[in-house]
């Protein structure tokens, strides 16, 4: 059985947060979960082992207390973090990549994901289908100069679909693993926990 870990789901006033919660809970049913909205000061008091950043409206600088939480807790304590959509864009913004208008904004459309068969994509077939809900994206040309590296892109379109920090336990997904249009969402989440949380 999995040891009990405490998961904080950082909710950016989103409408997919409970899909994400349900997906993660189905993969790690014995963990303890807390969902807090992005301006709730409880996030500084609640003691947690893993941070999940929800998708959400607007831009990555409009994520409430997230930047503060990163500086005060996530980086010093090296807390494993998985950011979805706006969560990935926050990682990009925090590590000084450019967040730009997407080459092609897509909402509620499944695209093919190209990846390097490693990290969270271990044992997942290439070109699997995943749902996009984004108008903004990380500028792909700028990434290699930062502390981030690309894990996946959209097929036929040079857009970042997943990334990780080079040394710290931070992963971001631009696509939505919790969407009903996405394949292998549960395996990706399971891989994240195996690699970064240890079980």
């Amino acid at each position, binding site marked *: 059985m999995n040891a009990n870990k405490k998961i904080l789901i950082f909710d950016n*006033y*989103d*409408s*997919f*947060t*409970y*899909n994400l*919660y*349900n997906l993660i*809970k*189905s993969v790690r*049913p014995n963990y303890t979960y807390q969902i807090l*909205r992005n301006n709730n000061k409880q996030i500084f008091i609640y003691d947690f082992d893993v941070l999940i950043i929800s*998708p*959400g*409206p*607007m*831009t990555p600088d409009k994520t409430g207390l997230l930047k503060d939480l990163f500086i005060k807790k996530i980086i010093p304590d090296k807390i494993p973090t998985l950011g979805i959509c*706006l969560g990935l864009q926050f990682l990009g913004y925090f590590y000084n990549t450019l967040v730009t*208008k997407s080459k092609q*904004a*897509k*909402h*509620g*459309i499944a695209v093919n994901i190209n990846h390097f068969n490693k990290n969270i994509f271990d044992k997942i077939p290439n070109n699997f289908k995943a*749902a996009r*809900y*984004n*108008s*903004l994206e990380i500028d792909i040309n700028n990434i290699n100069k930062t502390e981030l590296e690309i894990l996946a892109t959209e097929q036929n379109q040079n857009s970042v679909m997943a990334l990780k920090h080079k040394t710290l336990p931070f992963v971001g997904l631009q696509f*939505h693993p*919790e*969407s*009903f*249009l996405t394949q292998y969402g549960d395996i990706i989440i399971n891989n994240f926990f195996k690699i970064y949380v240890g079980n």
Partner: protein
Amino acid sequence: MWEINTEIKQINTKIYLENILTAVDKYNGVFLFTTDDFESGNHKNIIGLNPIININNSAISYSNKSLSANPLQIIDDIINLNKDDKLNFPLLIGYLSYDYKNEVEEKGLYKNLKSDIFPDLYFSIYEYYIIIPNNSENIKIVQLHFPFSHKKIDLNPLFKTKIKINIQNKVTSYISSSLSKNEFIKNVNQIKNYIKKGDIYQANLTREITGKTEYSPIEIAYKLYHSNSIEFGVFAKIENKYLISTSPERFFKISNNKITTSPIKGTIFKSKNDDVNKKNINELLNSKKELAELSMIVDLLRNDINKICTTNSVNVIKFPEIKELINVYHLYSDIEGQLSTKKFKDIVKALFPGGSISGCPKIRACQIIEELEKQGRGPYTGSYGYINFNQDMDFNILIRTLFYHNKNISFNVGGGITLLSNAVDEYEETIFKAKNIYSAINMEQIYDETYCLKD
């Protein structure tokens, strides 16, 4: 709080629509209906007559008394005291308005826009419920007995010979639209800007049309009843005002602890030519715009029911399916889950307002709707339905709905706006969708409102 007793009679008789509408008007009743072109089996018509206990935004009233109360809490208290698994008929019938969104979210997120004509929430416990399965004469009459005295009514006229409703040629004059054509188009483009900036993926924009009518509410209800296939219709009289809905959309249904929600997105108009229809259905099933919009709403509703369902129990059962009505085809989906709570308060807080008539992400979309529509919606895009003694429920989405108050009528028209929307097309679609309402009330010709209705 009261324990309510029930007395059930089963009879075999024909009840005429004319008599139902007349009784609803006379006894402050409600009629939840599905038109006859839907097969029997899954559908039933429910009449509630003589409201004895009424609950609104802030108070519960009965027998000339009124006590202030939190409505969702008091509804749960009434359900808890009276729940009975064996009784599959209504305890309460009523609605939540779209503007009730202000009460289910944290304070400060919304501007608190309201419509001042209808209450934000209204539920009643009626003395009589009459349940008529579709296309059947096997009728159940339930009388509720309350532990206090109240006004009684005579049900007999309901079953007598057909009352005649003479539909004469009357007119409804146009007064206004809350957004002009230019404002509507400007707002569609503003929503597209918000989408490009990353604020939202989709928002539902509507406008309110008002008029003054010579028709009586019964006449309008009678004409609207015959104007279309209506699966989730309502005719209700509340505090001398009338709500008449021709809704094709179910919001959610709860039966045996299972919740089903059935969002609709995408509409095409039927042709008389079957080959054209086949081609159009095929186009709808493969339309990138419509499928993307429906997918968004499916993910949004999965999210909302995940709040009140057990882990891993929420499933998309149908995606996409075609629903055929007399004059249109719709694209829809069914999503199911196993409930982890039966509290009405939890259900309302998880689901309201409906995803298909607000937008995604919902809170930001509702804020943008407030900014662009500039007024409350009232019961429009809220939800009407019943709560049974056995805690089953069925609620619609109050679209294609007309409101009547002292000869004044109003109805909203609108549509979902995405990045793929064309502003002029969206405006025209709002007129198409209201075609049955315009013709039922014989609204005078206004160029902007009717130019695309000509065949």
